[in-house]
């Protein structure tokens, strides 16, 4: 396949593609696929035809259908649905709807519908729009399967389906080397994690005695006390951490921004990266509560959250800024899953919903800016508030929620986080300061993303700025407004989503804390005020700070480059191994084959049997000794001689001696065949010799001590094996059958012949076929030689 030219370097890469297909109508003749598509649909080059609106209906229908479960779930019911899949292995296609899976289902289908509506405009007229929608829809269905699955193995299958569809989506712009690299990186990293996860899930299933998640969750104490608890935990967390991009596996997520913006909004903020978080939450009742669980999640979550917010600060590309804040959110979610207090889990649930709402809105909003101005560079963008009022409004609402300002849901989530941190049993100061640092940085980032591009002066942009069309505005506005509505009326999600989710994790709806805007003057409130103050200072000084961070970051170890080095190392190892094993030297291959044979037989003989019993040597007639002497003498001559004629003659001697053995021991037919064949062999070799050179080049000898040792070894084990075989009693039933049926059934008196042409006729036919094929191939080889000679 031809390598496409590398048109990488950041945002520009995607813009090139988008400008061709998105902003302007494709030039006639510029793109064959685009033209065909336009003709086929018949309504102008900027439309996606029926592929545009129809896919939107799928998530919409699922969303509406899921809403119908809110009633039962908020009453504490759990809906279960099961089909046998591989009953012999205990694998069933079973689904479970409780608070946790319903929350995820609503987020996935709801945001999915808005993202698909948005994509239809964002990628209008893209020649591969059908493919894009196929990937996106498959991804969404896989993700829904993942959050609804009630069987560890089905869950894993859906998990891998999201990995694969996400690979296809990140690499959607397949002509860009950067996209391909990012896609492969995400695939390898999450795929490796998934392998660990599979191992972990299997051990978990075996330890619990069932693969049904709902049954496993009821056996939490048993699993935590199990001897294999630690391996299970490590393997499952390896899968969750890679999928949810926890430090030090975080680097694939910012790179995954090579995907088209709607994909980033859907996969890399709201849904897929939360799969790891979902898994930890799902298995929380079974695995949490131990010190290992608590400390691992606390440390990984906290380090990811703070590290990512610092890096977010350092970025200038708005999409990259959001990518790093997503990392921060994932870290925070992990951090709060470490605990099992009501506040921590309520904070987890609330922040999960909050983050999905505002982050998807912001990503879509960045897409609008990109679409309207042709750039995503924070340093260039400015003064867009008047030109893009609706985008600006959506951005402001989403960012206020992100910054945690009342009365947005973000504020409630932040208050709950502080409450949860203060309540944390072992390390309240650590958790609270981590949360404070991350939230303050979030506040500043919100300013950079949603305030500065709209209300501060900027530089001219590549495209004359214009407002995005309504299908692109619908998503960010609806999501951002939702953040405000549930902030003002938290009761809307309290009983429907938050309490059932907390109940799913902690086993009791009573543990859920109340979501309220005004919780009185308490420590969380002071921490909030502190967050605003620090965040504001950070925002004001963000440009000098960014330069300092960039300087530090340039010198710090780079994980992305480290990844390249790991891959290079792997390739070098593969090359070394290939060169070692596949030397291309025929003799070495044969040597290894025989050495393996020798080692295998030798070890078996050494371990399993005594040496053969040589008792009872019979008295042999001179002719018998003579025949054996002929064989051995002939063999040794072939090996030692340097003369071709001697070698042929000695081979003939061996062949005729073998024929003599057949004659002596009652096998005249075999002996005749052997003589004929032996004669032919000698004749053929002799003819070939006429045009072949001498065996050895003049002055060169064929002494190979190592080969000789191996040869003697193989010969010895062959002899010993044969002696051992001969000591076993022989089973003659088959021979007796042939003897008894040869005349009555096949009417032949020569039993050997009857076997060949009657009982085993198909074998003989195969044998003839082999000879014919050999003859034809030989003829073909000789004929081409003759042609070349002419």
């Amino acid at each position, binding site marked *: 396949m031809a390598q496409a030219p590398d048109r990488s370097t950041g945002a520009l890469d995607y813009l090139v593609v988008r400008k061709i297909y998105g902003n302007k109508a494709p030039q006639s003749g510029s793109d064959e696929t685009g033209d065909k598509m336009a003709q086929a649909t018949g309504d102008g080059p900027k439309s996606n035809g029926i592929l545009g609106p129809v896919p939107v209906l799928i998530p919409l229908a699922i969303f509406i259908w899921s809403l119908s479960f809110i009633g039962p779930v908020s009453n504490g019911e759990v809906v279960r649905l099961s089909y046998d899949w591989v009953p012999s292995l205990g694998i069933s296609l079973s689904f479970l709807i409780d608070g946790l899976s319903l929350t995820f289902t609503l987020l996935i289908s709801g945001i999915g519908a808005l993202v698909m509506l948005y994509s239809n405009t964002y990628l209008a007229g893209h020649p591969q729009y059908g493919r894009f929608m196929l990937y996106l829809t498959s991804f969404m269905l896989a993700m829904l399967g993942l959050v609804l699955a009630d069987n560890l193995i089905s869950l894993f299958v859906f998990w891998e389906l999201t990995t694969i569809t996400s690979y296809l989506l990140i690499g959607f712009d397949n002509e860009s080397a950067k996209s391909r690299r990012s896609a492969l990186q995400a695939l390898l990293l999450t795929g490796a994690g998934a392998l660990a996860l599979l191992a972990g899930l299997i051990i978990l299933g075996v330890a619990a005695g069932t693969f049904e998640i709902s049954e496993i969750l009821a056996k939490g104490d048993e699993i935590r006390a199990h001897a294999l608890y630690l391996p299970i935990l490590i393997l499952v967390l390896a899968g969750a951490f890679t999928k949810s991009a926890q430090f030090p596996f975080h680097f694939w997520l910012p790179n995954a921004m090579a995907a088209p913006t709607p994909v980033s909004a859907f996969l890399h903020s709201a849904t897929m990266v939360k799969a790891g978080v979902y898994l930890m939450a799902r298995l929380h009742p079974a695995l949490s509560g131990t010190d290992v669980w608590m400390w691992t999640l606390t440390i990984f979550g906290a380090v990811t959250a703070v590290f990512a917010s610092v890096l977010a600060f350092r970025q200038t590309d708005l999409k990259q800024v959001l990518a790093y804040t997503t990392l921060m959110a994932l870290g925070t979610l992990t951090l709060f899953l470490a605990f099992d207090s009501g506040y921590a889990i309520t904070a987890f649930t609330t922040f999960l919903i909050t983050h999905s709402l505002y982050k998807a809105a912001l990503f879509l909003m960045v897409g609008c800016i990109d679409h309207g101005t042709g750039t995503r560079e924070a340093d260039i963008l400015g003064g867009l508030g008047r030109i893009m009022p609706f985008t600006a409004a959506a951005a402001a609402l989403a960012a206020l929620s992100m910054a945690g300002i009342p009365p947005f849901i973000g504020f409630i989530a932040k208050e709950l986080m502080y409450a949860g941190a203060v309540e944390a049993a072992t390390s309240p100061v650590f958790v609270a300061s981590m949360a404070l640092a991350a939230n303050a940085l979030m506040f500043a980032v919100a300013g950079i993303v949603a305030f500065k591009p709209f209300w501060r002066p900027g530089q001219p942009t590549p495209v004359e700025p214009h407002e995005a069309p309504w299908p692109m505005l619908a998503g960010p506005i609806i999501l951002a407004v939702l953040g405000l509505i549930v902030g003002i009326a938290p009761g809307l999600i309290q009983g429907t989503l938050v309490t059932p989710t907390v109940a799913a994790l902690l086993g009791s709806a009573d543990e859920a804390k109340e979501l309220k805007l005004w919780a009185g003057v308490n420590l969380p409130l002071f921490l909030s005020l502190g967050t605003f103050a620090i965040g504001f200072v950070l925002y004001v000084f963000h440009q000098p700070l960014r330069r300092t961070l960039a300087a530090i970051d340039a010198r710090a170890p780079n994980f992305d480059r480290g990844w390249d080095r790991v891959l290079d190392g792997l390739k070098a190892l593969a090359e070394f191994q290939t060169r070692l094993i596949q030397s291309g030297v025929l*003799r070495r291959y044969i040597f290894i084959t025989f050495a393996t044979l020798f080692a295998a037989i030798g070890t078996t003989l050494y371990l399993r049997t005594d040496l053969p019993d040589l008792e009872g040597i019979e008295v*042999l007639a001179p002719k018998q000794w003579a025949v054996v002497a002929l064989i051995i003498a002939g063999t040794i001559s072939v090996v030692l001689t340097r003369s071709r004629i001697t070698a042929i003659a000695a081979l003939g001697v061996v062949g005729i001696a073998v024929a003599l*053995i057949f004659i002596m021991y009652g096998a005249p037919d075999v002996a005749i065949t052997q003589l004929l064949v032996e004669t032919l062999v000698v004749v053929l070799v002799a003819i070939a010799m006429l045009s072949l050179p001498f065996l050895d080049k003049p002055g060169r000898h064929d002494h190979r001590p190592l080969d000789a040792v191996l040869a003697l070894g193989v010969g010895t084990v062959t002899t010993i094996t044969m*002696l051992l075989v001969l000591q076993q009693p022989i089973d003659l039933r088959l021979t007796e059958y042939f003897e008894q049926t040869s005349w009555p059934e096949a009417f032949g008196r020569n039993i*050997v012949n009857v076997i060949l042409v009657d009982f085993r006729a198909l074998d003989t036919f195969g044998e003839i076929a082999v000879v014919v094929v050999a003859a034809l191939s030989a003829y073909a080889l000789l004929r081409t030689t003759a042609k070349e000679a002419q």
Partner: protein
Amino acid sequence: MEILLSISVGVLVAAAVYLMLARNVLRFIFGLILISNAANLVIFTSGRLTLGAPPLIEEGALLPPEGVANALPQALVLTAIVIGFGLFAFALILVYRAYTTLGTLYSDDMRVAEPRSEDAG
């Protein structure tokens, strides 16, 4: 005799392995012939040896006389000899063809498919 034949087979196999490891592919062919012979002897001997009584049924009889040689390994060896010959003939032609095309009988020098890195560079 079984013991002697077992030793002969060992000698044949050892010689065959040594020859098959040689640089010259003609020696490889010699090794191939020897190892075919060894294999035939192994099959034949495993069926046990019976002096001078071919497995034939006399005119008018339904069964062969008591104590005839084992017919089954003979049939197998017959097939094996012919197949071995086919293999040998093809290998010999291949060697001949390789020599006329590549001008060498040394397997180390036959590197059309995988040129040595120094050759390629």
